[in-house]
């Protein structure tokens, strides 16, 4: 019989939430780049910089939201 601790379950939850918040943040980046293309006239470094900044802020916003959501779901 294999014994698994609660922290192993916790790691699964963290992995799942990491997948979600990284995915959402990348979606925001794609949206940013797409908008940049639509509006047009931006130098490439500005678009890259803006994409990085958007990614950082999106990660900060979505990381706690997804993590606590999946933890709550597991507890239920």
């Amino acid at each position, binding site marked *: *019989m294999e014994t698994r601790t609660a922290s192993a379950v916790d790691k699964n939850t963290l992995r799942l939430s990491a997948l979600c918040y990284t995915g959402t943040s990348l979606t925001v980046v794609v949206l940013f780049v797409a908008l940049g293309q639509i509006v047009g006239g931006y130098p490439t470094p500005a678009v890259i*910089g803006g994409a990085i900044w958007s990614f950082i802020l999106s990660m900060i916003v979505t990381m706690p939201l997804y993590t606590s959501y999946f933890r709550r779901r597991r507890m239920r």
Partner: protein
Amino acid sequence: MSGQMTSKISLKIAGMSCASCVAHIETALSNLKGVSKAQVNFAAQKAQVEYDPERADLQQIARAIEDVGYEVVPDELSLSVFGMRSAHCEGVVKEGLENLPGVARVEPNSSTETASVWYHAGIVSPAEIKETIRDLGYDVEEKLEGRAALDREREARQRDIRHQGFWMLVSWPLAFLIMLGTFREYWILPEFVPEFLGDKFTLFVFTTPVVFGPGLQFFINSWRGLKHGVTDMNLLYATGIGAAYLIGVVNTFWPDAGFGGEKAVFFESAALLTAFIVLGKWLEALTRGRTSDAIRRLMALQPKIARVIRKGKEIELPADEVLVDDLVIVRPGERIPVDGVVIEGYSAVDESMLTGESMPVEKKTGDQVIGGTMNKTGAFRFRATKVGRETALAQIIHLVEEAQASKAPIQKLADKVAGHFILWVHVLALSVFFFWFFVGYWRFFDPQSTFLLTPYALGEIGVFGFAILISISVLVISCPCAVGMATPSAMMAGTGKAAEHGVLFKGADAIEATSKLDAIIFDKTGTLTKGEPSVTDVIVAQGFDLSSAEGSKFKVQGLEGEKAVLLLAAVAEKNSEHPLGEAIVRGAKERGLEVPDADRFDSIPGHGVEAEWQGRKILLGNRKLMKERGVPFEALLSQAEALENDGKTAMLVAAEGKPAGIIAVADTLKDYSVEAVEELHRLGLEVLMITGDNRRTAEAIARKVKIDRVLAEVLPQDKAEKVKELQATGKRVAMVGDGVNDAPALAQANVGIAIGSGTDVAKETGHVILIKEDLRDVVVAMEVANATMRKVKQNLFWAFSYNVASIPIGAGLLYPFFKLVVSPELAALLMAVSSLSVTLNTLLLKRFAPTLKREKALPGKTPSLEPSFAGHGSEIRRR
């Protein structure tokens, strides 16, 4: 069974009364899906459960146990969490811990930097809980009590002050040089500032130690929080400083990368941002302890050493080692180590620090002394009655701590706002970035405009630099520190201030409720009045003289008038156990009369008494008695009625069949009843009195005290119902009464005020406890509550106004109209100023003095409310 995964937990269970309970719980657990084994130990009151965490969890297991009528009892851990200073930090700790398997409940409190954690010992250990808190970026220790807690808290605060002070010394000189370098080309600076200082590589060299020295704490703390899926204010600082620094580095080393070029290095933003945030942290550390000064002062009252007689020898030992019944010696100028009763000696003791009573209190054999109070003039010995946590001082400290740790309803809104704020600020920063990048820059941008506090012409920094700097400013300017600390700081100061005056609020909710009252009901007996009858009037019948040869045959010389009538009544009542009789005997003795025994004494139930003294008859009683015995009392009847209309009980006295006079007995008003009611009227409250007395007596008392409304003939058990009736009319009602006898009414009222608990504060019912039997303290409680709530509202107003006004400005709302936009460093300065203004506003509460005490202190004003102290030639209050 290969592949099945199990977890084991041990749970404490309450409610098991016999061995059959074991079977109940084991069956309930075994029926639960995912539970492979359940073993309950009745003796240890514990259940060991093996379960598959994929199919069952702790909540389901606990519910299964509770469903069959038992309770899963978590252990409690009290922790000091250093650095948890805002509502947001509370959220971080709460969320971080609640995510930990085995943690049942977390109650953090940022105002006291403490957290109570309820956990299941079989699943998680205190060490794991503490480690998680450390991982979140806070120092943690198990909560200490009393002096040790005081020392530890002071030590931690001083360490923080030193720490942030050191970073100030690092960041400010460098930030100043960076600013000079950045502004080098402006004003008269080119004449004084060497050219190399303006070089971008020099600025990089100066900025790097600022960001990775003083600024590093924000990166570390925010990373710790993010690891646990929580965001905090450090993240705001870290993203702001990090972004400004990174853009600076890129534009310094790769000026053609397209982020604004070498003219837009932003190093001064990163450096000044760090310096201002560190300044804010340092100021916060300096002022943080001030709001809890009162509790610190209370704790400092606990003496360290006691002088005790053991085995016939006087020895010195730590005060916490004194035992109940120890004989303790106190000399002049020493603090009393524990509570006790004086058995020998005489002194005056200053109890002001505990009761707010400004005058020293006389102590003689049989009197109680309170630990922590200061012995002034004489030496005495006392027997210890309460030691350790049982002493009045320990109880008061505990109550004040509890009150300071509690939350007022108004705080919940602020906490909710502050708690979710950080996340929304990042959403806003992202939206603002998008807006200025895609829309704002193209529509409103003017290349000649500049940021406030930066030298750059905005044309030089390009679309990305412009949008990201506004985004950073939003992050920094939005910090909700001030909102988070607005309520708890004022509540701490308010409860402390009240405790200084002998008024103990049991919670922040009690302060808020007290500030909203419409009506206040006083219990009559024992609250407005002294609760024991005393002689108020003696009227002598015309022509009666005990000592005159003709008027009397009594062999008592030298007594005439009132004293003679009183003596007769006292002799007749000497052996009576009736409260009115006892009042008469006491009244006679108080007037210096020696009361001899009567030769014969008969009680006539419902009428009075009949006695024989020196062979003569004395009658004392009502009209019916006099009528039956044929005593002609008509001449005194009008006076008797007048006394009765005043709420007094008039008793007729006759000697040898002739009327001698009237003795009036009544429950007398306590000192300051009238003044207290007057002040309550001034505060706009309706004042009521509740009593079981008949309406005439009750109204007579009410007239004297100027009570607005009387609730008479109310049985003790109906008092709570009367409070309820008043509440049903929409009024918020306070009830003032004895904490024990009036407990149901005190509990029913919006605010129950237990008066005169003395030293046994822990046993009292009620939301507010007054240590002294001084009705003026009811006024003090109202005034402190009003002042505290005023401060809370002012703080919240300033804090919310700051955020409401600053966030749009930070987001560039003014730019389209005035071409003005806030730089990140100015945003940091504004943020620090907002927190500081809230703290300083709270500290103004320290100057608060209750009206009655302020009036007393006015020069030239007669201290009309102060009791007069006669007899000792010194200002010592007799108890």
